């Protein structure tokens, strides 16, 4: 029995797709990708435009300009990252072409590094934005403290709740994402070892 003959004489089981079917599938995939990108872009643009409008129309004092300036800067930073990511995602589609040239693990590492960078940038933008928002709210908090009618803690409860929830969410997300990245990089390293022709533990 020649293994090559055994292997090559297997019966085919999955029919080849027609060019038309392929085109339909690719069209659907591209449409999905485009929808996600458009959604992210629209949300970012609407938020940035809202913050700019507030900054231009309602903010006059230096302190408010600094705080809302931070909010606008954070929103702009996020918008820039979303645009950059969209372009990169479109380019990443080229893996199908690059697959003919490069190794998939190289692409996988590149994609992971890119994702990690993106998360770092977005986290930085979120910190700037929230710092600005806290600064913008602080005068109202100070005002409430100067006029302590009723229970000050109850009146300020929404502020503390939102701040606390944001902090908790930020901490939990950060921990989860870090854990996820550690797991993915560890797995990638294992695969890279497995893909080397002669791994060290191979006797």
């Amino acid at each position, binding site marked *: 029995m020649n293994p090559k003959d055994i292997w090559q004489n297997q019966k085919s089981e*999955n029919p080849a797709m027609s060019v038309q079917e392929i085109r339909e599938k690719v069209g659907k995939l591209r449409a999905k990708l485009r929808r996600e990108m458009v959604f992210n872009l629209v949300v970012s643009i609407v938020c940035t435009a809202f913050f700019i409008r507030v900054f231009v129309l309602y903010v006059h004092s230096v302190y408010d300009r600094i705080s809302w300036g931070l909010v606008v800067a954070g929103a702009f930073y996020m918008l820039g990252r979303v645009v950059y990511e969209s372009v990169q995602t479109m380019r990443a589609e080229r893996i199908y*072409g690059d697959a003919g040239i490069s190794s998939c693990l190289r692409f996988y590492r590149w994609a992971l590094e890119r994702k990690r960078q993106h998360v770092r940038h977005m986290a930085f933008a979120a910190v700037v934005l929230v710092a600005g928002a806290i600064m913008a709210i602080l005068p109202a908090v100070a005002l409430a403290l100067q006029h302590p009618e009723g229970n000050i803690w109850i009146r300020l409860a929404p502020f503390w709740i939102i701040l606390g929830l944001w902090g908790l969410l930020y901490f939990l997300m950060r921990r989860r994402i870090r854990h996820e990245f550690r797991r993915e990089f560890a797995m990638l390293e294992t695969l890279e070892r497995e893909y080397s*022709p002669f*791994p060290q533990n191979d006797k």
Partner: protein
Amino acid sequence: VGQTERQDDLFREAIARYGAALDRLVRAYEADPDKRRDLSQEVQLAVWRSLERFEARCSLRTWIYRVAHNTASNYIVRQRRDGFSKLVTLEDVEASPDPTDHQGNVEEHIAIDRLLQLIHRLRPMDRQVMLLYLEDMDAESIGEITGISAGNVRVLIHRVKSILTRQFHEGRPT
């Protein structure tokens, strides 16, 4: 339009010439028939998309195999990332084809199963080399596809050959 027609023509040519080999490759990467159908479509999709950038700097065969192997490897990465482990239900077992249906080819089926069991157990790189060797490719072409030197490929092929000889000529169970 010309570029798209060229892409379509190349795809038709690739499937006509290497479709069966792609099918075998998919079988070597996925044991579950349903998932195999999905992977097969994924490979064909990747081949079609990649052909947009095919500039004939290497042979169509090498290009197709490289795309197919990378897509299949990517599939393995995803499976691992998702922590996928293959468990089948009793219904799946009942629905799987009855081996007695192939009485005429029992020996051949046993041999293919043994070969597939062996391939599924291999590390990805060894699996790629063995599959390409079984597809009758020489060390240079295998090196071009996998990205390892022809010298290293020869060493791996030597190992593959001795394993296959042990398994199929001396009749040892896998």
